[in-house]
């Protein structure tokens, strides 16, 4: 696959400068968060003022009910709850006071408290009502969901434009966004779908393209440290679980009789059959499970490494360590750009491979 035209772009230097600038932004936002933590901590005991990288890192990679922008500014996101008393919708800003501490909120149906991003129902005496909280289903638009919507809108905008360009510019050379999308679409078709699925590949192209671009755009948005990005969407196990569940369903629904006969009637002595059934049925589920863990762990690991490198500044409490830290963060961010593409590629590639084994014709 040729990417030379991307590097030879006229405004490549501008893009590089912007990328470097954005990386410095990550440091700045991080520093402001840290400052706000310190100012919060002044009132608290001295033990809490000590910087704990684990807490800070986990806070940055986890899902939240509000989207923190910088300092004391954050976007309130809608909270949607199915409770035993019915549907309840309100803004997440109701759950915090002006000092950003969690407070109880009475919606008229229930009293809620946001306990470490798990919303609980409070009983009349102010204690957490565990029984009612167990029947609380949280369908909120959290930070991850909002970031995913942004990715979906971006993908829709880009690809409706590309699709209409193919109609209006039929037979002409690609132009603009089209020249961005075309190499990747052809890459998915010629290097992923066709070699792995065979001649039946066309039916699966829309799904493979959707998976590829959805994961890739979400990975890239996760690498942007400021507002539209920054959410750890592909590093959320629920997100990867749903993607791999879709793969599981698609692969098994399209399995032909050879696929199922490999599972239930493999060429083994008859007394081995019960063991083979167990092994093969575990195999059906372990393949999408590995997809789920791979994407989740890779992206989360990347975020943790970048945040750890920034944390070094606050662990050593020294400005002298900052240039080293920034240099490593720059290096890791560039590496993560590669990983973002590679993980989208691997996920799509393995999906195509699994579909290929399910639809291939018998050849013994």
């Amino acid at each position: 696959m040729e990417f030379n035209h991307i590097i030879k772009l006229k405004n490549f230097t501008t893009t590089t400068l912007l990328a470097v600038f954005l990386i410095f932004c990550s440091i700045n936002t991080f520093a402001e968060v840290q400052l706000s933590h310190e100012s919060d901590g002044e009132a608290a005991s001295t033990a809490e003022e000590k910087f704990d990288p684990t807490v800070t890192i986990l806070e940055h990679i986890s899902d939240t009910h509000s989207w923190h922008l910088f300092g004391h500014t954050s976007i309130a996101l809608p909270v949607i709850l199915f409770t035993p008393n019915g549907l309840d919708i309100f803004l997440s800003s109701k759950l915090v006071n002006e000092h950003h501490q969690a407070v109880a909120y009475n919606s008229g149906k229930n009293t809620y408290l946001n306990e470490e991003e798990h919303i609980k129902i409070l009983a009349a005496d102010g204690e957490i009502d565990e029984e009612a909280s167990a029947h609380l289903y949280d369908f909120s638009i959290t930070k991850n969901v909002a970031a995913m919507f942004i990715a979906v809108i971006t993908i829709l905008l880009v690809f409706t434009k590309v699709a209409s360009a193919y109609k209006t510019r039929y037979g002409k050379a690609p132009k603009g966004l089209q020249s961005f999308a075309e190499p990747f679409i052809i890459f998915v078709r010629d290097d992923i779908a066709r070699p792995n699925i065979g001649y039946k590949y066309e039916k699966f192209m829309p799904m493979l393209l959707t998976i590829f671009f959805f994961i890739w755009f979400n990975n890239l948005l996760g690498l942007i440290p400021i507002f539209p990005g920054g959410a750890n969407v592909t590093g959320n196990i629920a997100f990867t679980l749903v993607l791999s569940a879709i793969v599981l369903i698609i692969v098994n629904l399209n399995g032909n009789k050879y696929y199922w006969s490999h599972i239930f009637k493999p060429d083994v002595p008859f007394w081995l059959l019960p063991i083979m059934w167990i092994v093969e049925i575990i195999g059906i589920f372990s393949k999408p499970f590995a997809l789920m863990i791979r994407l989740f762990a890779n992206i989360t690991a990347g975020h943790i490494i970048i945040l750890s490198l920034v944390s070094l500044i606050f662990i050593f409490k020294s400005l002298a360590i900052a240039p080293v830290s920034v240099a490593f963060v720059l290096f890791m961010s560039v590496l993560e750009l590669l990983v973002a593409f590679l993980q989208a590629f691997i996920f799509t590639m393995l999906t195509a491979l699994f579909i290929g084994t399910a639809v291939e014709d018998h050849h013994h």
Partner: protein
Amino acid sequence: MVGSIAAIGAGLAVIGAGIGIGQVGGKAMEGIARQPEAASKIQTAMIIAAALIEGVALFGVVVALLGNNPA
């Protein structure tokens, strides 16, 4: 104590993945050197094999992470 043992577990998982991916990468290099025209096919197969090895190693790392944060 739990945290340090979990960290040792993560380290061991990484050793396994390192050996595995090292083997895959080395053999792929050899293959490409012998037959440069097959480079793109070898690369694809190499990435798939590396991803499968990495997946198993990441199981280890995730278990180590879970062991580190009993919550």
